[in-house]
């Protein structure tokens, strides 16, 4: 305080003389501001994902396949049930004698891009419908897993203690049940019930689909629940949660600002990994004849039907096989990309 009054300045003093300095201009001030704007976790992860070319290509493939599967049937000239006995087992882009006669008369006939099957149904539209089933199974299974897994895991992790112990023992037991066997068992058991069911939706889906969704609801959410619970348990112990509690943050704020954002990455990764396995299970069941009910096609049932004429009409196997390979491959690669983007620590 006394220094303020002092007018004489000792030349040897190290005290800085403010007169020697000039004020910084606004431009110079702006340069001092941190060069990188603050980035939220979500945007950061999305940026990492966008840089991953393989994941982005996979995403584009999935979007493209989904668009084809859901839009093409609306204007496609053939339906998946329409049989034409004069056009059985045609090769791709081949016309039956009847169709050829019409073309000769000057009529325009849409080509069978993938040929026709043993009942003379256009194969391309059947593969498209099969793809649609696969995508729907994948997406709905992910939704079921997300909803049940998050609720269960969050309750278990949040309450901790005895509740957690009991809930996790149940998860351990469910985890060790052989899921595919139980899906098969259920679909055998509810086959009768489904075929006599009055509900149109259930009858159209078929025993396999209904049991797949039941089993997803009963069994598949356990890995999600485990991950979410583990995440919540570890977040609870974090110092920043303690700090925000100390400055009086409400529990709802802690859950909204700390718990949920920190679980998002785990949820996205586990859900993305779930989709291919759900698609596998559905096609496997359909191949065994336990999936969708006829005449609804599935990639698995198409591949199974193709076996009878495998020597003469190999393309009837190749098309559904390629479609399922492409879908599962894209989901796998996207899942890997999401894992790398959202959890760099997990990267192997």
């Amino acid at each position, binding site marked *: 305080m006394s220094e303020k009054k002092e007018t004489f300045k000792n030349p040897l003093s190290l005290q800085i003389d403010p007169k020697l300095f000039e004020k910084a201009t606004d431009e110079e001030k702006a340069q001092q501001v941190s060069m990188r704007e603050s980035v939220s976790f979500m945007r950061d992860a999305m940026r990492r994902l966008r840089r991953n070319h393989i994941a982005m290509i996979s995403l584009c493939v999935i979007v493209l396949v989904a668009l084809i599967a859901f839009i093409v049937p609306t204007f496609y000239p053939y339906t998946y049930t329409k049989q034409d006995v004069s056009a059985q087992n045609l090769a791709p882009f081949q016309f039956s004698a009847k169709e050829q006669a019409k073309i000769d008369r000057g009529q325009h006939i849409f080509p069978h891009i993938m040929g026709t099957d043993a009942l003379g149904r256009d194969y391309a539209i059947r593969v498209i419908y099969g793809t649609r089933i696969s995508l729907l199974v994948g997406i709905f299974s992910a939704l079921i897993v997300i909803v049940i897994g998050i609720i269960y895991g969050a309750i278990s992790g949040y309450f901790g203690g005895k509740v957690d112990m009991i809930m996790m023992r149940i998860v351990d037991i469910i985890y060790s049940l052989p899921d595919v066997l139980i899906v098969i068992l259920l679909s055998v058991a509810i086959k009768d019930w489904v075929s006599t069911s009055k509900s149109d939706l259930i009858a159209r889906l078929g025993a396999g689909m209904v049991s797949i969704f039941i089993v997803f609801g009963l069994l598949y959410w356990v890995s999600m629940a485990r991950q979410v619970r583990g995440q919540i348990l570890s977040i609870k112990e974090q110092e920043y949660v303690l700090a925000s509690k100390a400055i009086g943050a409400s529990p709802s704020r802690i859950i909204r600002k700390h718990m949920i954002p920190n679980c998002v990455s785990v949820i996205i990764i586990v859900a993305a990994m779930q989709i291919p396995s759900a698609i596998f299970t559905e096609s496997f069941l359909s191949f065994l*004849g336990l999936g969708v009910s006829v005449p609804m096609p599935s990639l698995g049932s198409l591949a199974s039907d193709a076996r009878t004429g495998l020597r003469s009409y190999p393309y009837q196997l190749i098309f559904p096989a390629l479609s399922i390979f492409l879908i599962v491959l894209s989901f796998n690669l996207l899942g890997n990309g999401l894992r790398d983007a959202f959890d760099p620590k997990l990267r192997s």
Partner: protein
Amino acid sequence: MNGKLLHYFVKRLLMALLTIFLVIAITFFVMHAIPASPFSSEKAKSDAVIAALEAKYGFDKPVPIQFLNYLKNILRGDFGLSTGWVGNTVIELIIGGFSYSARIGFTAGFLAIIFGVILGSVAALQRGKFLDKLIQILTTALVSMPSFVMATLLLLLFALQLGWLPSMGNQPGGLILPVISLSLYPMAYVTRLQRSSMLDVLGQDYIRTARAKGVKNSRVIFKHALKNTLTPVITYAGPMMAYILTGSMVVENIFSVPGLGRLFTNSMLRTDYMMIMGVTIFLATMIILMNFLGDVLYKVVDPRIDLS
């Protein structure tokens, strides 16, 4: 075996037994929830005949008593009589089918582990080079292919188009294609596990120490690294068993192998409930026991892992 390990062993065993019991209960009650009697599908029978058959197979008693009887019989190794293959007991049919499935399954599992470990190690040692990238692309493609797609494509290519191998399981050499189609997916999976595990171990201090001492590269890999990379592969034993056993259902059908998987799908076609129950319980028990063995072996091999 120290006390902590024994404690874990007992706990894990009880857990496995509880799971097996649960599978039996689920199987039994699900199959008994079906309204139709297993005999009602055959039209030529009168009600009296159906009642007599139900009495013979014990289906006329209250369900809980049937369950207790079924449980007691299973403990004695008696899974009841088959209704689809009249004159055979379920356990006879299961053992007959399993002799084929076990041969295919164990060969496939063995090949998957051997080649998976080799390929995974090679990929890790060649990290970032051409061979690593090639192996990564191949394994990514293989884990995206369902077993039935793999099996039918192999059948199409090697049996029908090229004619190198027989398409039926009962011909000489007919088990080669089923074994290959079952082993490729687990092999790809083991390769990925082994690659990341090998990379992990190669980054450890003791490997650097060994190298600094001047130990030969091959000795570092085989003597110091390889042993410690195998633990993650052990834990995959259970899931691999599950994959191979369920995969054999489609593969055995495609190649006409008279194994357990084919028996299972046939018993579904014949609505042979005793058979379906028996095979489900048998397969589930195999999977659960394999999981148990994998977990316990994991803890024995790597005592550092926390046993809590």
